[in-house]
């Protein structure tokens, strides 16, 4: 097996810009484009905390599909797999400002953090204040637990996005929103698996070895390599192994309630996802853990990667209340309970 390099694009260098145009045109009632950024078609109420995120493209529907009621106010999409620069992030901060302060969420990747810090320096220089930044990480494969702050952001950020968006929408203060972000982050773990790799649409370069189709566990959202697994491992075994590793890392007691996310990294079939989900539920049950909320589908992709990730978030009453609130994005909707 090798990888698909023939893509349905015009000029690849213009792919991100054209994607944004097309995507907002489909979802005109929910989002629009302003200054190259995806913003809410109907802005949040005045005085509320604005939530903004800048990130590399190629992970759609994250994050462009997460702008909307109960979610983000602004998404600044950078080039493929590359954080936008400080100037663009600063524009995003300004656009998200509804007078209640702005929370800048950053997925922990070297480039994202650096550009966000440079943007915040710039904001300070310009006398803009009330900007808070929270760095998010969840991927257990990227660093041992005693160096947890060195972990990178993975699919588990789903839970942070969802709950912070809900908190900001209902009127929590900037400090409260930031506290929710840190709390959810600290209760969330993710781990990914994939077979094969993908090609960068602009350079045409594969991420890693295109001929290597070994199943690897623990790879990153930009194709950073992980550990290899034997060829004949079935879905139940893979799911079980991954869930065990997440639960061990989180040290959850039997009886704990979790949110369970099964994220499609790109080209997995719904058939495979459903079979893996079934395996994960069985693995959770064996450990006495209850999946009280579940979501399955493509959320944070790596282009058309044939892979997936599991994330668990240790729920409590406060988090469930936030999780269940209405959210209306182009790529994620939840009708409040």
């Amino acid at each position: 097996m090798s990888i698909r390099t023939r893509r349905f694009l015009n000029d690849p260098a213009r792919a991100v810009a054209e994607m944004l145009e097309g995507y907002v045109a489909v979802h005109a009632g929910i989002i629009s484009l302003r200054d190259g950024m995806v913003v809410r078609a109907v802005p949040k109420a005045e005085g509320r905390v604005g939530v903004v995120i800048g990130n590399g493209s190629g992970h759609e529907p994250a994050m462009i599909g997460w702008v909307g009621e109960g979610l983000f106010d602004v998404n600044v999409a950078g080039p493929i797999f590359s954080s936008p620069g400080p100037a663009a992030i600063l524009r995003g901060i300004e656009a998200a400002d509804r007078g209640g302060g702005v929370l800048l969420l950053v997925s922990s990747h070297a480039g994202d953090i650096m550009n966000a810090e440079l943007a915040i320096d710039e904001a300070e220089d310009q006398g803009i204040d009330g900007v808070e930044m929270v760095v998010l990480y969840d991927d257990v494969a990227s660093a041992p637990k005693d160096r947890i702050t060195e972990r990178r952001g993975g699919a588990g950020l789903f839970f942070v996005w969802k709950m912070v968006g809900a908190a900001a929408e209902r009127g929590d203060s900037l400090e409260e929103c930031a506290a929710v972000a840190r709390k959810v982050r600290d209760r969330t773990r993710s781990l990914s698996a994939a077979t094969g790799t993908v090609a960068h649409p602009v350079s045409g370069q594969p991420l890693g070895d295109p001929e290597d189709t070994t199943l690897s566990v623990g790879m990153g959202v930009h194709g950073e390599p992980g550990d290899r697994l034997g060829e004949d491992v079935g879905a139940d075994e893979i799911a079980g192994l991954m869930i065990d590793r997440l639960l061990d890392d989180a040290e959850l007691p039997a009886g704990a309630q979790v949110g369970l996310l099964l994220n499609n990294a790109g080209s997995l079939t719904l058939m495979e996802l459903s079979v893996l989900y079934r395996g994960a539920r069985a693995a959770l049950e064996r450990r006495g853990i209850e999946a009280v909320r579940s979501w399955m589908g493509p959320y944070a992709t790596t282009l058309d990667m044939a892979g997936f990730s599991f994330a668990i978030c240790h729920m409590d009453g406060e988090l469930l209340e936030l999780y269940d609130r209405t959210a209306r994005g182009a790529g994620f909707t939840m009708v409040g309970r």
Partner: protein
Amino acid sequence: MIDRDLAVRLVVAASTRVNDHQEELSRLDSVAGDGDHGVNMATALAEAARRAEHGDQSTAADVMRSAGSAFHETVGGAAGALFGAFFGALAGQLSKAAAPDAAQLVAGMEKGLARVARVGKAEPGHKTMIDALAPAVRDARESMDRGDGLEAVMAAAARAASQGARATAGMRPSAGRARFAPDHSLGTEDPGANTVALVLESWADQLRSEVRV
């Protein structure tokens, strides 16, 4: 003296050089990174060159500052932030003299290195652009202290950067994306270090050709 027009020629030279090597740079980045480094650097430098050639910057410092912004505005990513920071710091030092020369250039490179290290939190030996930039800055300073002129100073910097970039092949990464698979990139040079070498080499060549003419 580094005047506005020389600064423009330096930016253009860097853009041409990196553009010629962009596939090689992306290939290096694809081993343990996301395979876009060549595209990133070529895109940012092309925009920097465009601004330099069509812009209304009146000093060398302005040209370099606008190059830094080109990095920050067009590409982002790790290298975008870091190269943008480097050019910004360089511009800051150049602006301190009416007729900036080797002294301001070397001071600017030192400031740039410091800013890259601060923003990126990486150290020498972490297999990053710092492993080309740090020796380049050190040798440039030594050369200047020996009394060399601009051309010789830049030649020394380029030589050291190039050696530094080659040496990254033997390192295990502990910064950037590649750190997640430290063994994966053993034997492969760091892409960002190579860009540093290419840029400094293009500047050394440009200065040499101007002296000869």
